[in-house]
């Protein structure tokens, strides 16, 4: 088996007027892995997704998807990948089955295999019972499962998911996670943009954290946590004035901090020995890394 990476971007730039939405991005998705693309709103995640399907054309940089060079060979690449969009764009007056039939055709599943492909996608998304329901009769979670099934109908080697669980309740998110985990276990390469950090932590083999159009950190979730937040984090609560003092004190002592809204979290607390008064220690998580790296201000 060759090792053509599913996605390899080098120095990719995409500007809209004065705004450099993607600004020198390097991004790798090794074959068969699930990569989480994390970043705050406006970090360039959606633009990156559009670049990967050639719905946006990069101003500079190299883009290779499944070994094909974009934008010139993007059609070949698109034939072998599936895209789960952030916004629901199902054909709402069609049945679940017809939505899948249409995309089996658009993705050029050979005629003799189309019915089987639709049946398989229905099973994968556990929508077999609802195959004849109109798309606009489905619940939000079912519609999203159908969107995923639609992206898988042609057995793509790579799946792009743009915020796959945004706006869904916890039970539905868990269902989708199980679906994504299954896909991953079958060896499909996945690039998943999300701003839900727990999602990336659970599902991704590797995470690329984006900020202002660049990758600011890349690694397995555990490794990133160890590197940037350590084993433990000390959270100190208090009124705003007190939080500012704690922050200043920790930084003077050379410790990274982040605000959580109601507290200041001091990273790598296992090395902290100063007196910060009341506080509690907890395990470091990917959110600590994310906020630490992408800044505290909301763009």
């Amino acid at each position, binding site marked *: 088996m060759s090792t053509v990476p599913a996605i390899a971007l080098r120095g990719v730039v995409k500007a809209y007027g004065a705004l450099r939405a993607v600004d020198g991005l390097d991004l790798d998705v090794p074959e068969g892995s699930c990569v989480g693309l994390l970043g705050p709103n406006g970090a360039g995640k959606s633009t990156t997704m559009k670049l990967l399907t050639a719905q946006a054309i990069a101003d500079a940089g190299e883009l290779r998807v499944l070994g094909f060079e974009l934008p010139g060979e993007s059609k070949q690449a698109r034939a072998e990948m599936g895209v789960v969009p952030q916004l629901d764009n199902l054909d709402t007056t069609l049945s679940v089955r*017809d939505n899948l039939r249409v995309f089996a*055709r*658009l993705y050029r599943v050979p005629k003799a295999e189309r019915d089987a492909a639709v049946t398989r996608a229905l099973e994968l998304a556990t929508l077999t019972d609802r195959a004849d329901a109109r798309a606009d009769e489905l619940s939000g979670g079912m519609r999203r499962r159908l969107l995923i099934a639609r992206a898988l109908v042609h057995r793509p080697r790579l799946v792009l998911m743009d915020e796959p669980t945004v706006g869904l309740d916890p039970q539905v998110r868990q269902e989708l996670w199980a679906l994504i985990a299954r896909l991953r276990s079958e060896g499909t390469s996945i690039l998943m943009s999300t701003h839900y950090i727990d999602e990336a932590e659970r599902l991704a083999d590797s995470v690329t954290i984006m900020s202002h159009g660049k990758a600011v950190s890349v690694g397995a979730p555990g490794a990133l946590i160890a590197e940037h937040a350590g084993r433990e984090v000390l959270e100190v609560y208090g009124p705003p004035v007190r939080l500012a003092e704690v922050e200043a004190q920790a930084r003077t002592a050379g410790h990274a901090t982040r605000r959580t809204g109601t507290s200041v979290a001091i990273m790598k607390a296992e090395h902290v020995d100063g007196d910060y008064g009341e506080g509690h220690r907890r395990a470091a998580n990917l959110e600590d890394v994310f906020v630490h790296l992408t800044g505290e201000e909301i763009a």
Partner: protein
Amino acid sequence: MSTTAPTKRLRRLEGAAIGGVVFREVVNFGSYWKATTFSSTVEPTIYLLAFGFGFGTLVSEVGGFDYVDFVGTGTVATAVLFSSAFPAMFGTFVKHRFQRTYDAILAAPVDVEELVTAEALWIALRAGVYGCTPMLVAIAFGLDPSVGMLLVPLVGFVTGFGFACFGILVAALVSAIENFNYIVSAVLTPLFLVAGTFFPIDGLPGWAQVLAEFNPLHHCVELVRHCVFGFEPGTDLLRLLALLVFALGLWRLAIIRMQKRLID
């Protein structure tokens, strides 16, 4: 670096891509064909009946034709216009901006050129069929059937393709759906009225007659009449050529503008 990618290069304007987009339209048509068929056929038929019988009592003959026959053949072009330019304008705008359908299609191995071509072909096909309705109604009211009538769907198809591309182009250019009003009032209504549908062009001032020769709908009206009543090979070929130039020109323009609109 080795590659497992298939070596088959995908070309432009592939049948599989165009067929896929048309298939999507055909499947969707199952859920809205009644409304579309109603508006595309009933409206021109009402024009035919209102003008044919309203004016028909004042003018019994125009240019040597029975007035009902004159209008019955003329409103074929009206039906073609209504079933091509309007669905193309609204359909394209809605599918692009509201339903985001084109985002999904372009994520598949379909290029903008194929998308526009497929959408226009499908609309043109419908226009070719719907265009025959007024003629069939006129037959019911006494228009004599002729062999040339078999070519009417083809004339409707070519005209419909041009106006479908026109509609797609307009949808790509406007920033809001309300702006369609400008196009309907300033472009489509004059084209529709000065096409020789309800009254002959040769009664108009000279400058208007010259302008009418730039109206594709006028060529459509004349070709349909000649299909029904007898060809004038020389001018008919020129008119067909004019329609083809119109259709091909707008096809390329629609692709260029949609490319700009859909690909950042």
